[in-house]
């Protein structure tokens, strides 16, 4: 969604004592975007978020919000809503009071408080009688909703979320993912979301910034990140890929951008498995292992000097077993190559 940028980091550096967490951050986030900061632990994404919130003061650079320089402003003055990883709900208050806390701080009158809290609760899917419960009595998913309602009830300009789904079980995570995204869509509020989970990032974001060791490796839409990974780190962090070694490369019609003497990578969803004894369309290989997922199977096929991973949709008609000779069609347009030598995640 294109629009004026509402959040910007310019030359921001964050240090903790001698340790430089973020050396030089430049980032622009547009109005109404669902923007995700993605990266492994220690990559600086939470630091960046907390700098935006005001809990870290940068050693250099500026942070702007709606054209205002907020670099040194106190968190309580920034008008930002935030949902914390462990929700940070107040155990001595019930759900209603938790949500109402920010309004009470602003000295909003009781009737208005009630209206706003009810509205916020509705929006996140909390029922009226849940409002009187003690927060300890709620399930994880419900607690998360309370945390979101609490942040939203103040109608902040932007919403920050620090890995809000990481403490939930898988099914709940997926369900809430959808709900969060729907909520953000309907509100249109600029949202900055921190996660290490690539599925979350891909399904929910308008744009993603991939962090590694305090630096941004790439900013782009989910498709950009996935299919047009700018660096080897991004390529390896997101999605499955195979390393195509020179032996196999020689048999492919590689584009000019690929140096056939060095390994290249290709996403696992790109190679096509062709099963059938008289097939000659692709290149030959032998199935060395498979993992059956129900609606698709991950095969690993040994082709010349490379182990090629591929995802094969189970259409009910073709499949292969370990040891089978198969044909694999690789479209060289999807090959990617980077300055660094690629490594598979399981090897590190």
């Amino acid at each position, binding site marked *: 969604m294109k629009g004026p940028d509402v959040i910007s980091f310019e030359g921001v550096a964050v240090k903790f004592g001698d*340790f430089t967490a973020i050396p030089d951050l430049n980032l622009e986030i547009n109005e109404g975007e669902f923007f995700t900061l993605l990266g492994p632990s220690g*990559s*600086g994404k939470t630091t960046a978020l907390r700098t935006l919130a005001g*809990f870290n003061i940068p050693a250099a650079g500026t942070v702007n919000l709606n054209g205002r320089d907020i670099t040194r402003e106190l968190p309580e003055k920034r008008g930002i*809503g935030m949902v914390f990883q462990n929700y940070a709900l107040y155990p001595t208050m019930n759900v209603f009071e938790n949500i109402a806390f920010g309004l009470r701080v602003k000295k909003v009158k009781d009737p208005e408080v009630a209206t706003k809290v009810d509205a916020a609760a509705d929006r996140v899917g909390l029922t009226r009688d849940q409002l009187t419960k003690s927060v*300890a009595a709620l399930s994880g998913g419900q607690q998360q909703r309370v945390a979101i309602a609490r942040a939203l009830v103040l109608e902040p300009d932007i919403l920050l979320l620090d890995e809000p789904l990481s*403490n939930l079980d898988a099914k709940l995570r997926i369900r809430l993912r959808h709900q969060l995204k729907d909520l953000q869509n309907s509100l249109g509020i600029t949202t900055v979301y921190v996660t290490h989970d690539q599925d979350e990032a891909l399904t929910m974001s308008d744009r993603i910034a991939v962090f590694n060791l305090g630096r941004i490796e790439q900013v782009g839409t989910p498709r950009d990140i996935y299919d047009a990974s700018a660096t080897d780190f991004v390529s390896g962090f997101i999605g499955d890929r195979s390393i195509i070694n020179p032996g196999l490369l020689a048999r492919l019609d590689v584009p000019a951008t690929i140096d056939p003497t060095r390994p290249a990578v290709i996403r696992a969803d790109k190679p096509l498995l062709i099963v059938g004894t008289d097939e000659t369309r692709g290149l030959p290989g032998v199935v060395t292992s498979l993992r059956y997922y129900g609606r698709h199977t991950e095969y690993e096929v040994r082709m010349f000097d490379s182990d090629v991973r591929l995802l094969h949709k189970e259409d009910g008609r073709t499949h292969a077993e370990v040891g089978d000779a198969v044909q694999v069609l690789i479209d060289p347009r999807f090959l990617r190559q980077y300055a660094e030598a690629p490594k598979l995640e399981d090897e590190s």
Partner: protein
Amino acid sequence: MKKTALMFRSPFVIVLWVFLAWFIVTFLIVPNVGLLVESFQPKPGRNAFQKLLASDRAMQSLFNSVLLAFLLSVTVNLVGVFIALVTQYFKVAGSRILWLGYATTFLYGGVVLVTAYKSVYGKGGVFEALFGGLGYSGEWFGGLVAIAFVMTFACTTNHLLFVSAAINKVDQQVLESATMMGASEWTILRRLVLPQIKPALFATTILTFLTGLGALSAPQVIGGNFQTISPMILAFSNTQTSRDLAALLALFLGAVTVVMLAIMNRLESSGTYYSLTRVATPLAKRRIANPVGNAVVHIVAWLLFVIYAIPVVVVVLFSFLNGTDAARGTLGLHSITLDNYIRVLSGADALRPFLVSVAYAAATALIVILIVGITARFLQKFRNVVTVTTEYLLHIPWVLPGTMIALGLLLTFNTPNPLIGGVVLTGTVFILLVAYVIGKIPFTLRMMKSAYAGVNVSMEESAQIMGASTFTVFRRILFPAVLPVAAAITALNFNGLLDDYDTAVFLAHPSFQPLGLVIAAQTSSEVNLDAQANVFVYTVLLMLITGATMWLVYGRLLKDPTKESGRRGAPKGRAKADTTAGPAEPAAPKTVAEVVK
């Protein structure tokens, strides 16, 4: 931005620190420095240091105090850990009753407790009367053995509080997994549980060490040949000319205390917490499979119960017995009487000392928790020159004995003093209050610091980001979170002040004399055979008050921290995700690595 500047962003903090600066200078520094300077004024031909070194008795006393401190550190830990395990960890029959027995140490202490033990085990005591025929003699009850015996059982209060709470926080599943792998109970205890409660154990050990070092009541009453430092300090501070000796000895104790303090701070910065609250799902108690082991544990547990309970029973019993008969050893059924109570409680002003003591204790406890409750938060959160200095200065009352502090206050505020607006404090009710307040600051400070350290930092941050000022965050989020601990400490402080003598004797106002003075008058009475009985009556009445306090706080407040809000809600279910920040949940400190994600 430098850390110090960060802290003083809030006007609330600035006001607080101005108050603290005034308070510390006026009541902690000026009186004590003044006293020390006066005590150490050089006199021709007199070298306090040499005198002490030359005195065998003084050197022996110092040695004895240190010896006692080390000895107690071991014995109190043994008994303390055992009773904590027996009431929290193992399945032991009648554990609730056991707990009540072990908790009797909450009810009384000091001279009153020692006297009670003496009347049971000592010469001419109950045991001798009952079992003399079987060969029991009270001869053994004196010297180091008696002191160690009594103090070992009297000082387990902290274990019952803090070590119990730490045991309860052990992860149930850790223990289950070990059991599945075939580990014995002993192995689990030694290799999984004890390491996890080590921080609480360290902290409690230090407190025990300091208590042993400064022991006063037990050595005075039953010490016999085994002399320790505090009685000597007391004797010397009461003279005009030997105060430098008292000061020197006190400074020795103070130096040891400061070292312990530094160690405690080191421990806490690595994540040690005093914790008093329970988690929502308490540990399931473990059965001791080995039948012999089970029997032994039960026997020892109940034996300990008897040891704890007997003095209390004796005190209560003897409060109803005729004192003359008791002194003469001519007890019989005819001796049962209510006379003692009537004697103590009749008379126009019989209740006055109680009211005075309760009022002083309550006022002190509330003032201390107010000052310290707020200050501790900032001392815990910010570590800079200002906070570290403030913290060490606030521990001055631990460095000097109560008598010296009282003396310092007395001499300093005898005349109109500009520091307090040109008013004289001596001879008013307030000087004793000041002494009590400053005496309780160090302990309260340590406890509250730990309590705050256990509060999840994101609770504060979430409130901040919603626009709450520092003061509002404190008032509405932080303080309620540490309220259980604050209440517990308030109760402990309150109880501990009720029978104070050493400070009151110096500073009490003639019209408002607290209980300790009245009790002391009884014990110093030389002819009155009813005196001992009177002391028992006072002890029983004291125990009623302290018992009521403990029940109020521990029985109601701490039973279920999730009921804190006082708002009616649906019946509690079990929280699925364990990520709600409960009060005083010890969270690992946010290390840099953790935050940089």
